[in-house]
């Protein structure tokens, strides 16, 4: 059984505002029985002030789905539609004293229903939102728009988080490529907007379908999770490489705004050479293998190989290259 907060349990066992609202003038219906979650949110909105006078819900779902729906109604009553539109799914989860990570999609469903109800009041087609993006996950009927919103609002940076918040990818996982592309795209946009640190952003190839499947199977208890590898001290300083070795100013661009391949390779080599003492100090090493466009292939060796912090090391090199060369690079260990 899930570890629900007392407030979740209270809102499940004693749901507020449950049932049909006869004189509702804004109705949002989201979810599907196939997914195991569905919500009908009914609002009574005062037309002039656009204030939500009353709200009721009907939910098909688990304990947290029912509690989230009930909490949503409590939260929106008294708000104007403009104020309600500013709410996020996190507000619902926070109101309940938190939800288990795997149940965050219940709060997202509430958020979606609210959007749908407000669109209904304003005579807009909620369908339109969904038609903006392709249907990504056929198993759970989750489209690109929903994934984008969940990623943006909750600063999601892994495929597992996307699944926890939207259910997308929780079934056959044939949508993996689409999910990954969507996550990477939205994260990149968030980085550009300053809403997410570059090193936190998900990058294409940041994980594999097999890894996600394995984790899902572990979560379901089908297989045991492999024992955590012992942390290798060598890699941990990589997080703070910037603090150890000052980053030189970005290299001047070649005439014409570009950079010759020879100069690019030299700069990459220089960057790795600057970092090498710190890697060797911890028993590891890194050498350049190839530069292809903006992709830099490197070979990790020594303590860096098999280290659970290797991805952090690679990210560190990546960030450092970007800072030194003045353009984004993708560093791929080979």
């Amino acid at each position, binding site marked *: *059984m*899930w570890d629900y907060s007392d407030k979740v*349990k209270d809102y*499940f*066992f004693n*749901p507020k505002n*449950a*049932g049909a609202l006869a004189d509702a003038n804004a109705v949002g*219906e*989201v*979810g*599907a*029985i*196939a*997914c*195991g*979650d*569905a*919500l*009908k949110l009914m609002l009574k909105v005062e037309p002039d002030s656009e204030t939500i006078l009353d709200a009721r*819900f*009907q*939910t*098909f*779902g*688990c*304990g*947290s*789905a*029912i509690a989230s729906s009930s909490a949503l109604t409590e939260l929106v009553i008294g708000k104007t539609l403009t104020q309600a539109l500013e709410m996020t799914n996190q507000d619902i989860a926070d109101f309940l004293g938190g939800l288990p990570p*795997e*149940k965050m999609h219940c709060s997202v469903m509430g958020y*979606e229903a609210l959007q*749908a109800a407000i669109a209904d009041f304003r005579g807009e087609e*909620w*369908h339109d939102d*969904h038609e903006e993006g392709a249907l990504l996950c056929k*198993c*759970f*009927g*989750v*489209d690109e728009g929903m994934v984008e919103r969940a990623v943006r609002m909750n600063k999601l940076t892994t495929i597992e988080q996307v*699944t926890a918040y939207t*259910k997308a990818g*929780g*079934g056959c996982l044939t949508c993996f490529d689409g999910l990954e592309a969507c996550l990477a795209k939205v994260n990149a946009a968030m980085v550009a907007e300053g809403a997410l640190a570059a090193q936190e952003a998900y990058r294409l190839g940041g994980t594999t379908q097999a890894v996600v499947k394995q984790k*899902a*199977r572990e*979560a*379901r*208890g*089908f*297989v045991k999770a492999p024992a955590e590898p012992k942390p290798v001290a060598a890699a941990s300083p990589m997080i703070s490489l910037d603090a150890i070795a000052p980053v030189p100013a970005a290299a001047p661009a070649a005439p014409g705004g570009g950079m010759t391949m020879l100069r690019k390779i030299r700069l990459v080599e220089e960057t790795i050479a600057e970092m090498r003492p710190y890697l060797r100090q911890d028993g590891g090493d890194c050498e350049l293998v190839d530069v292809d466009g903006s992709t830099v292939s490197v070979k990790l060796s020594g303590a860096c190989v098999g280290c659970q912090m290797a991805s952090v090391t690679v990210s560190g090199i990546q960030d450092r290259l970007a800072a030194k060369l003045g353009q984004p690079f993708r560093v791929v260990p080979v």
Partner: protein
Amino acid sequence: MTPVYLDNNATTRVDPAVVEAMLPFFTEQFGNASSIHAFGAAVGGAIRTARRELQALLGAEHDHEIVFTAGGTESDSTAIFSALEALPDRDEIVTSKVEHPAILAVCDHLEKTGRAKIHRIGVDRSGRLDLDAYRAALSPRVALVTLMWANNETGTIFPVEGLAELAKEVGALFHTDAVQAVGKVPIDLKSSVIDMLSLSGHKLHGPKGIGALYVRRGTRFKPLIRGGHQERGRRAGTENAPAIVGLGKAAALAAAHMADENTRVKALRDRLEAGIVQRIPNCFVNGDRHDRLPNTCNVAFEFVEGEAILLHLNRAGIAASSGSACTSGSLEPSHVLRAMDIPFTAAHGSIRFSFSRENGEADVDRVLDVMPDILDRLRALSPFWNGAGESAAAFRPVYA
């Protein structure tokens, strides 16, 4: 309020007589069964007794056909890996879509690593094996057929004795995961051609962490765990003597209560089932109504979600389980119910009540008392329920 425990397919309470039998083997009877001195000999004798008790429950011809393991999962893995190693010229496995993860996960792994081709045979709406598909999958390439004796979720029984005979025709080994069946239905292995059978102690009022694999005499066998010479070299490691003694005692008790399980316990199950179907609209029984474990009752409640039902039951002091996605941490409902093609409207709201010899009439009464109200409350919240016993046609959510 006395708790009502109806989740015996998950695990059973250890019988006090089993605990009593085990206790000396934690204290004065501490010897290593492999030792030659008196301390060891006494423990060795107790293990022999336990082996014979298990032999009797399974109707095995020889007591040395019993190999003690750490539980059902280890027994299953041992059977599968042993078959592939013992028959190196064969590389296919036949199983079903409704097996326990202890089988499915191993098969998935073997398929992924290219070590075996897996045939997963489907089932019908009652959970009965597709016999045509089974026959079609059998060939001289098949090293092992592994099919469960009884399904843990629905209780549906596979006719394993007959299925084993078909497997023999192509020279394959036959294993059955009988974790749910042992102690609940009569088993007579000496009259069958079943090569291997898995069982687990905690499903029959024995301790957790102990199980056994039956290996018919003459079956080609390769151990999974190698090391010492324990269990005739078929399962290395110092014997878990207290647990083995407990399993032996549990087996003896199960044999003694077999008739009760198939009469009184079955009657309790049937009364609960009939009472639920009579009192609650839009629900139906999952599984084979005719060939099913006597203790298992799996009911699908339409238009509500299983975890929500379980939370209410738990508050009423009743323990059951669900094939619902939200209980398991998975996002999809039970693979068994999906394989049976149970519609989503019902699969999400399926509840399993599993009895044991410790249950009584009062337990059934309690469940029947609370279930109608729980369903009323949850259906009143459900947008799919229109009160008339049918899905609310007007509810057409955006993602549907």
